[in-house]
């Protein structure tokens, strides 16, 4: 049943809810209407009973006259009224039986017969001495009896009216309750999942491509969630590809720098070797040793360059570890050192004292830094100063890295678009336009932020914030982790 409810569409759910409400209201109205009909028919009965009451009343009036005047006219009048009452009883017999049962009618008729007998014996003079009193008593009994039925019936009608008031009140409360329940159900079925989707959409717009969990219904919203998750998955995959492409792009930039850097020690080794061979006999023992030591040093220098490049290009797992941002900055600067030297750029690194560790994929963050530095180098074709500082944010929750160049700057009209994938300018050139969007994706994925301010002609400043790993910081102190 629950499964089937999950599968129905929102429209069907709403229609079902409305239909249920409608059925309830109709049932309540019918009940109320039936009550009203009963009350009306009972009221008609009571009114018709009044005829009987009037007849009995007339009979008692004639009785009074008879007892007062003891004349023939009064006697005739009473017997006529008795007959009239009997007719009224016969007329209303059906209703009386319906109201009070057949026994009641018989008892009433019996009472009236006894009354008639007493009246007749009084007129004929056959009556006992207390004949008048007995007639009066019997008359009172018939009157009470006939009135009692009307009185009881009125009470019953009163009860019915009170009951139908209660029914009305109850149905009002029930309708209100049903409405409230419907609002709750609709909000559970529609509003809550919509809010979840809204939240997920916001996260995606901030670069965190997480699927929506916990929406199990298969209605429009369920299908929307499935489509959303599908989209998030594809964007995530696309983002991963961009990260890989960005890695290759920065690797390409680094490789050309490395080729240059590597050619220098190679040239040194080559020149030493050529001189060594050519002047072998002229060289002293010490000089020969010194030449070979120099060759060894140049080999070591080459190996360092290659190691750096390998370290950068190696694709590692996506696991995040606690790391020191200042050491990462030193490493990243080393990777672009050659570009800085060739571009006549002075690099100034100011690292904050004892900064707490950051939980990060060190490789990805290194890539972000290399990208940012490479962009700064490109922005300073005539040389300049690259200033890199690390420190704590004002509120103390983040580590901030500020990268300032003294380059050409970014025109204000393109500033908002520089983090878009594939956005590039021909002036900046050389890149694939992947670097900044990839950096943005990586930093957002780390729960951080990347912001830029720029003044054309004066330079740009990139501020990268990464949340401090609080739990890790305390753990670090306890374990005295040498890596922290």
């Amino acid at each position, binding site marked *: 049943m629950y499964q089937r409810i999950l599968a129905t569409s929102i429209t069907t759910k709403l229609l079902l809810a409305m239909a249920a409400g409608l059925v309830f209201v109709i049932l309540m109205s019918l009940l109320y209407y039936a009550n009203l009909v009963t009350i009306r028919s009972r009221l008609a009965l009571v009114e018709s009973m009044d005829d009987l009451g009037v007849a009995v009343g007339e009979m008692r009036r004639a009785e009074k006259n008879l007892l007062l005047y003891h004349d023939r006219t009064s006697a005739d009048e009473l017997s006529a009224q008795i007959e009239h009452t009997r007719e009224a009883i016969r007329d209303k017999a059906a209703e009386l039986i319906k109201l009070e049962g057949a026994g009641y009618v018989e008892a009433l008729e019996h009472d009236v017969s006894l009354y008639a007998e007493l009246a007749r014996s009084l007129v004929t003079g056959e009556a006992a001495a207390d004949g008048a009193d007995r007639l009066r008593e019997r008359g009172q009994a018939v009157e009470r009896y006939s009135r009692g039925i009307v009185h009881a019936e009125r009470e019953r009608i009163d009860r019915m009216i009170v009951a139908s008031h209660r029914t009305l009140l109850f149905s009002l409360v029930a309708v209100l309750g049903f409405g409230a329940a419907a609002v709750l159900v609709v909000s559970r079925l529609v509003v809550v999942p919509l809010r979840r989707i809204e939240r997920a959409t916001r996260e995606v717009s901030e670069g965190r491509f997480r699927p929506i969990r916990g929406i199990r219904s298969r209605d429009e919203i369920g299908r929307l969630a499935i489509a959303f998750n599908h989209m998030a998955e594809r964007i995530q995959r696309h983002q991963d590809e961009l990260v890989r492409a960005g890695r290759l792009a920065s690797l390409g930039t680094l490789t050309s720098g490395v080729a240059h*850097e590597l*050619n*220098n020690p190679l*040239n*040194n080794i*080559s*020149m*030493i070797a050529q*001189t060594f061979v050519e*002047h072998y006999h002229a060289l002293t023992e010490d000089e020969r040793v010194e030449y070979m030591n120099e060759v060894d040093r140049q080999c070591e220098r080459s190996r360092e360059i290659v190691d750096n490049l390998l370290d950068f290009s190696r694709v590692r797992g996506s696991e995040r570890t606690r790391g020191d941002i200042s050491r990462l900055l030193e490493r990243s600067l080393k990777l672009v050192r050659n570009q800085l030297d060739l571009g006549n750029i002075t690099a100034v690194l100011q690292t904050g004292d004892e900064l707490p560790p950051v939980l990060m994929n060190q490789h990805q963050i290194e890539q972000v830094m290399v990208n940012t530095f490479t962009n700064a180098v490109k922005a300073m074709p005539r040389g300049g100063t690259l200033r890199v500082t690390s420190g704590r944010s004002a509120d103390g929750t983040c580590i901030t890295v500020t990268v300032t160049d003294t380059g050409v700057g970014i025109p204000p009209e393109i500033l908002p678009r520089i983090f878009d994938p594939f956005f590039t300018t021909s002036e900046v050139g050389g890149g694939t336009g992947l670097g900044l969007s990839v950096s943005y994706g990586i930093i957002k994925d780390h729960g951080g932020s990347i912001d830029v301010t720029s003044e054309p002609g004066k330079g740009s400043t990139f501020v990268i914030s990464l949340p401090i790993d609080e739990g890790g910081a305390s753990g670090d102190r306890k374990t005295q982790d040498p890596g922290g």
Partner: protein
Amino acid sequence: METERPRILVVDDEKIVCDMSSRCLEEEGYDVTTFTDSKLAQAALENEHFDVVITDLKMKDVDGMELLELTKRRHPLTKVIILTAFGSLETATEAIHREAFDYFTKPVRIRDLKASVRRALGREPTK
């Protein structure tokens, strides 16, 4: 006799390049001056005459193109040989355009460098 020896200036921020070329070129009978600091080389070029200048292209402070330009302006007859660790068609074209005598990409063969210097001094027929 000192004054008759051709004067060669070698500028490269790699000390080994300076040392090795100096050793090999001195053996050829040249008077070799070397600088690893291109600013000092620039100052020397302002004040002194050299027959041949051998310079690296990419250096801190003053790069090889600037030294080439300065040499040609101050001493139009001085020959300039360019060395570079990262050769490209653009830099080679620019060097030739600025009347560089020769252009080598590292690693350099000392034999070729010596031959180029000899040609620059007119001691060997040009290729």
